């Protein structure tokens, strides 16, 4: 068994209102040192074996369903 992690993040040039809301809340809690927050999504996919064919398929899944390439970037990695 293996776990594959897909991280999806809003593209840098796309406004991230959720990240901004989180960032705005930090000073109210007394955390002043954070200069920016971006919020994304993390998917954990369980597979029998994280071989090249499976990873290629997961990249396809990430591109077609888990992310929208117009507004988001993704990365795929095997959980160590």
């Amino acid at each position: 068994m293996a776990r594959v992690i897909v991280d999806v993040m809003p593209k840098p040039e796309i406004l991230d209102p959720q990240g901004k809301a989180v960032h705005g809340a930090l000073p109210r809690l007394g955390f002043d040192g954070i200069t920016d927050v971006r919020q994304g999504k993390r998917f954990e996919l369980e597979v029998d074996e994280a071989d090249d064919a499976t990873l290629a398929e997961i990249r396809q899944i990430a591109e077609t369903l888990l992310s929208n390439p117009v507004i988001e970037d993704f990365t795929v990695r095997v959980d160590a």
Partner: protein
Amino acid sequence: MRIGVVTFPGSLDDVDARRAVRLAGGEPVALWHGDHDLQGVDAVILPGGFSYGDYLRCGAIARFAPVMTEVVEAARGGMPVLGICNGFQILCESHLLPGALIRNDHRTFICRDQVLRVENAGTAWTSDYETGQQITIPLKNGEGGFVADAETLDRLEGEGRIVFRYVDVNPNGSARDIAGITNERGNVVGLMPHPEHAIEDLCGPGTDGLGFFTSALAALAQAS
């Protein structure tokens, strides 16, 4: 003329859309997301709401609903397709329209009577308006900010594919005040505001929305 309205799990405005079709003089047909069947309709409306709970991204799951196979094929063949609010999000996720809708820049849900300027009265859904005409219809969304890269926005602008722009205020941070767009052929139109809520004087801000549905019926009558 028969206009189908798709109901997804979480659709809210399917009944209003069917009513709008009827008041405009058409025959509304209820379509189900789980069927690979358009029941021989002449046009399709994807209504507003929160299909599949807006899980993942707005419209991302609905895009893969069984009925969408037929909707995408028909749209590519020239059938008039209108996406309202969540329907617009589904059309973008389906790549029938470019760009995407993201959370409103002010981070709050907005519900207001919105003034729009009709920028293109040549589409299947806007021929009963005049270019430059201003109409008022309700707007209600949390994720209505239209975004696309600069090249796509320039192309939309250059090809006259921006169909509606917000007037007076930009209610959700949409790029270049865009409220609605169309495809190259002009048969597929998506917009965030809700014409189906402005079809009777009794409810809503007036009857400015009725023209969407009479336009489609006229386009269909002309084609037949």
